[in-house]
């Protein structure tokens, strides 16, 4: 089954890069010390944690490495930002309808159990926010704004730097948190030049292992620790440091900075070629989300009138790994909340497939996928009960071509 794997599901998780693996291994072996220890054996390990903190600070452009706190994952980072609010008088949170569940479900929890009022901003058919609506939603009671940098399903980018500016201008006290899990390593991030207060990243989305994440918290930002315990992370996140994973995250962050240009040029070209190849050869394919304001590695393509899980199963048999916003893949009967918020018609929503590339993707893999996908889609089109609708789509497409 694993003879040939073409992994185009990098927004789900990524392969750990060699640099991260090599640098983390000694910490399972001879360098097992606790960085908090008084003796040199532990203290030496602390130096590696310090270096990793600097590397992560470099990835997000923090002015001081102390602004980086290591967590167990992106979800923990989001929880920390949302649950850490300190001012009991301010009970308003603003977020968007297309956030990851690690923000949406925490916001719903705060709404239901802690007396918060939450504004969920909608998006247009391109997946973009209305800036005026955003500005209008901010008031003096707004404690926190939580907006993702890039969407995990569509790759669509929100102008978070601009949004942070707008927010602070209207209410300087508001906290601005950015879920940058899908943006880190794909677009340049420079928090020190923005008015963002907090920003989360996840290791396994940037070629570090699973089980490690981080949050940037700007100096002077008041947050109640979510994970209480010892003095680690300067008292902001208790628990003995996951040294090996932290070192790996540092190494992966350094690599991510090096590969930023690769993302912008080579990966983007491959993504565009894949997208064009599929659209040209499958008449019922359409792209979901803005094609311009988007991270370079992601494309979300709907195949109208056929169902996503079935497509994934057939692609998987060809060794191609992707994912879908279809209801059937989740065990949930409702399809993707992101695509529904964008008003994508149901004819397309159930047949949405996300391909997400990485630095390990090759041109020959893209060739293979461009060759195989239209064949699978044609086969599955013939099973669809919506034959007359499909014929109509085909006619429109042919007319447009000529």
């Amino acid at each position: 089954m694993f003879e040939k794997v073409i992994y185009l599901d990098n927004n789900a998780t990524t392969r750990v890069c060699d640099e991260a693996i090599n640098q983390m291994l000694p910490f399972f072996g001879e360098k097992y010390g606790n960085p908090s220890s008084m003796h040199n054996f532990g203290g030496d390990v602390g130096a590696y944690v310090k270096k990793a903190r600097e590397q992560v600070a470099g990835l997000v452009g923090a002015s001081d490495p102390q602004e980086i706190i290591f967590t167990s994952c992106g979800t923990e980072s989001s929880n920390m930002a949302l649950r850490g609010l300190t001012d009991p008088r301010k009970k308003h949170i603003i977020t968007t309808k297309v956030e990851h569940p690690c923000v949406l479900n925490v916001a719903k929890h705060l709404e239901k159990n802690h007396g918060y009022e939450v504004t969920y901003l909608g998006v247009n058919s391109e997946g973009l926010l209305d800036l005026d609506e955003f500005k209008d939603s901010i008031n003096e009671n707004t404690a926190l704004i939580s907006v993702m940098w890039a969407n995990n399903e569509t790759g669509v980018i929100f102008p978070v730097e601009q949004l942070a500016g707008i927010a602070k201008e209207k209410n300087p006290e508001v906290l601005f948190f950015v879920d940058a899990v899908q943006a880190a390593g794909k677009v340049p991030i420079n928090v020190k030049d923005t008015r963002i207060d907090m920003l989360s990243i996840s290791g396994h989305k940037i070629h570090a292992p699973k089980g490690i994440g981080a949050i940037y918290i700007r100096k002077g930002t008041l947050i109640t620790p979510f994970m209480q315990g010892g003095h680690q992370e300067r008292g902001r996140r208790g628990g003995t440091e996951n040294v090996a994973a932290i070192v790996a995250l540092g190494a992966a962050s350094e690599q991510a900075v090096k590969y930023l240009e690769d993302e912008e040029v080579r990966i983007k070209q491959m993504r565009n070629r894949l997208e064009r190849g599929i659209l040209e050869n499958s008449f019922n394919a359409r792209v979901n989300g803005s094609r311009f304001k988007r991270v370079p590695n992601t494309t979300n393509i709907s195949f109208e009138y056929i169902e996503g899980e079935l497509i994934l199963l057939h692609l998987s048999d060809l060794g191609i790994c992707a994912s879908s916003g279809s209801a059937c893949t989740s065990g949930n009967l409702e399809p993707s909340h992101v695509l529904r918020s964008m008003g994508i018609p149901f004819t397309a929503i159930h047949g949405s497939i996300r391909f997400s590339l990485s630095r390990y993707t090759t041109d020959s893999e893209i060739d293979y996928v461009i060759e195989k996908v239209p064949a699978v889609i044609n086969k599955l089109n013939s099973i669809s009960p919506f034959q007359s609708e499909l014929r109509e789509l085909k006619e429109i497409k042919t007319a447009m071509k000529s």
Partner: protein
Amino acid sequence: MWEYTEKVKEHYKNPKNVGSMEDADAIGEVGSITCGDALKLYLKINNNGIITDAKFQTFGCGSAVASASILTEMLIGKTVEEAEKITNQDIADLLGGLPEQKMHCSVMGREALEDAIASFKGETTEKKVKGKIICGCFGVTDDKIKEVIRENTLNSVIEIINYTKAGGGCGKCKDELQKILNEETSKRNNGKKEKPLTKTQLILKVNKILESNVAPELRKDGGDIELIDIEDNKIFVNLQGACKNCPSSNLTLKNFVENILKEYIGENIEVVEA
């Protein structure tokens, strides 16, 4: 990733009898694109009432394709009377089973078959859609829900969702589903006294529900739960961890734990802190 049987895989990879039929004697249609699955079934029926050919087209996942594909194989050669007796469980069984959450795919096969036979017998469309809509999200009627509860001996709202999709969208109709379920189970129990569970069976069942549906929720808030004993209709449990000293532990017991157990086992129970 779903765990599909080899039989399911065989059928979605190479489905049998795909396509439409120009001269079909009966056509059955269920589902819609909004709901995420739809099935169209075509039957050729000869003068002796024997189904000589069957074809299908479907919009759905792997298990929907497999269910429809195997259904057409089951149908060819059967009389209409024999075909009428095919249940969704027969379809699922022949596939070597389906994941619980995918049982509605087998129900869809059975519904399309019913619809086809009704059209063959000349029943009008109005007559075909029976009952009132309970689940607006997926357009499921009370008659359909009752029928599926009866045919599959369903005992919980969650099972109703898995088999019919009703209640799986916004979830507003769950109370009504519970009411229908209560009516159906009491009818079932009056009709033929079901053999009650032995104490051991009941303990096993309660333990399984606590482990898979209750404990994970409590653990999210740092708590946990343990089954201590069962006496008659009283279920004795121990709340642990954060739940132990939580001021709302009684609420948790009554509103959350008891409700879930009632959903699975029946109304006639009480959860008590041991």
